[in-house]
């Protein structure tokens, strides 16, 4: 076993985040109860340092740790999404967790641990390191889900999530072990090489692929593995809902793209149809069930399920266009979903929870700014130009049409129209009804900064998508 300093240098961002989180644990022990905000600001600093490190180390492709871990444009792009979403989530939390009365230092530290798990996932080119990263991310988020310790719904959500999550991890591991049994390796490129040689399709491999789809499908809440999402999204603290609807989803897609379009590319005929069916069912279920929701967090959970369906279509399309369109979609989704949850957090003050859709009636008459933010993010989620959400869907549909899946693109557009209804319904309530109650905003500098970043991102990508698309295209892995 040789020691190579290159390993340490190229995994520096991960080391910085983990070491920083460990130091913050110790710092948290000596801080007084009303000083926990310091941990939040320090974790922002750690994220910025790690982000700078990732940008400096960004390179064509360096494989380290015995070809388990890679630093390339693809992982750099996804790590930027994780930094962005964690940064925004921490900014939104600083004030929010005070209001919820759960201001503990562990909150930020667990977010850092979750982020480092996602970073490992994005950089992994071996099924085992993927699994380790995935568990680090998932375990931290299980705890964060139940962070409102005296709230029954939060506890229930955490309990459901941990049990179902453990079950899905088991299924994923079973799939990994089957792949290992059939190919004798867990390294993604090696798996692809061996599958190419084998030629004919083993029935065991089909089983392995189904297990892998089930395991990863759970993490991105694809139907039929989506049942946890509404309860968990509703029960978790809103800032954590924002965080887990963006970060882990992007991380899981980073892994899904690598596993399916790199390792399992030689047998793509066996899984393309399955993923296509899954994505259509996911879009349909998410969009249609969201129509009848009255709680905005539940509605956004179903909307998030539907968005996972659109992103899966990029996997069906495959190739450079497909990968780049999913990467761009995840970046856009990070901005707009953080934004909409940020606005919900902005309205949460005192006893007012701002969780019922009816609560937003007439917001525009009372507070133009908050109403306008809701308008932009809801339009973006619905995919209406000139917002970024339109661009994200547009490139996914384009890549589908280019590869010949025209009927899938048509179905996706129809689902997109259905989903527009429940987003626009909120806009209608905000703008066209008389207010029934007073609104009091929980303003703070951190909140405002997060919302400004989110709204700028949503609009800039919507107006100038070419630069971001080029960035994603130049960062794809050789699939």
């Amino acid at each position: 076993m040789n020691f190579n300093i290159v390993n340490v240098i190229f995994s520096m961002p991960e080391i910085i985040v983990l070491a920083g989180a460990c130091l913050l644990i110790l710092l948290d022990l000596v801080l007084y109860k009303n000083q926990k905000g310091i941990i939040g600001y320090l974790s922002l600093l750690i994220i910025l340092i790690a982000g700078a490190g990732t940008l400096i180390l960004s390179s064509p492709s360096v494989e380290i740790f015995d070809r388990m871990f890679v630093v390339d444009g693809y992982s750099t792009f996804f790590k930027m999404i994780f930094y962005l979403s964690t940064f925004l989530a921490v900014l939104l939390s600083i004030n929010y967790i005070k209001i919820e009365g759960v201001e503990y230092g562990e909150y930020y530290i667990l977010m850092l641990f979750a982020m480092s798990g996602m970073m490992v996932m994005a950089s992994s080119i071996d099924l085992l390191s993927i699994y380790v990263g995935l568990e680090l991310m998932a375990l931290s988020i299980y705890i964060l889900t139940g962070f409102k310790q005296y709230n029954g719904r939060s506890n229930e959500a955490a309990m459901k999530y941990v049990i179902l999550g453990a079950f899905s991890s088991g299924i994923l591991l079973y799939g990994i072990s089957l792949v290992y049994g059939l190919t004798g390796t867990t390294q993604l490129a090696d798996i692809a090489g061996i599958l190419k040689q084998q030629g004919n399709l083993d029935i065991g491999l089909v089983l392995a692929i189904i297990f892998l789809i089930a395991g990863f499908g759970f993490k991105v809440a694809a139907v039929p593995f989506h049942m946890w999402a509404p309860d968990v999204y509703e029960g978790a603290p809103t800032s954590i809902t924002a965080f887990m609807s963006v970060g882990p989803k992007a991380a899981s897609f980073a892994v899904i793209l690598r596993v399916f379009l790199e390792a399992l590319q030689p047998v793509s005929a066996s899984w393309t149809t399955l993923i296509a069916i899954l994505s259509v069912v996911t879009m349909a279920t998410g969009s249609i069930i969201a129509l009848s929701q009255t709680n905005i967090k539940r509605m956004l959970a179903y909307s998030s399920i539907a968005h996972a369906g659109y992103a899966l279509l990029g996997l069906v399309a495959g190739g450079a266009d497909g990968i780049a369109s999913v990467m761009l979609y995840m970046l856009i989704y990070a901005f707009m979903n953080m934004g909409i949850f940020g606005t919900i957090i902005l309205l949460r003050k005192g006893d007012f929870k701002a969780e019922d859709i009816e609560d937003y009636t007439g917001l525009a008459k009372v507070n133009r700014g908050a109403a306008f933010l809701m308008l932009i993010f809801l339009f973006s989620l619905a995919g209406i130009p000139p917002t970024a959400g339109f661009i994200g869907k547009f490139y996914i549909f384009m890549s589908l049409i280019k590869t010949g899946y025209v009927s899938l693109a048509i179905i996706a557009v129809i689902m997109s129209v259905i989903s527009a209804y429940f987003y626009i319904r909120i806009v209608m309530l905000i703008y066209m009804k008389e207010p029934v109650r007073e609104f009091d905003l929980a303003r703070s500098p951190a909140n405002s900064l997060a919302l400004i970043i989110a709204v700028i991102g949503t609009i800039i990508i919507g107006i100038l998508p070419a630069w971001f698309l080029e960035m994603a295209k130049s960062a794809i892995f050789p699939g």
Partner: protein
Amino acid sequence: MLLTYLPVLIISGFVIFIATFVFIINSIVSPKKPSSEKLSPWECGMEPIGEASSGHFKIHFFIIAILFIVFDVETLFLFPWAVVLRDIGMVAFVEMFIFIAILAVGLIYAWKKGALEWV
């Protein structure tokens, strides 16, 4: 090819047979004299107080168990490390100390939070 796994199949069949056989024999020949002492749930040798299902039981058992696992895993890594330390050299020596330092952070955290006090 498959035939080489035949001994495994025979062993599994044998094990299943033995296990069921022992259970059946046991349930047929054993004397049954239930008393309230025998039927009470076993709780670490203590007299059970109240209903365990009502949620009022000591969380400390679990905290101690989790802390035990942390150090159990540490020893698990330390033994093979100590055996081959001469071959793997200085780097592994430093690496193990980093590993122990990370575990120490966990211990300090638990200690400061009062996980080691029996209240």
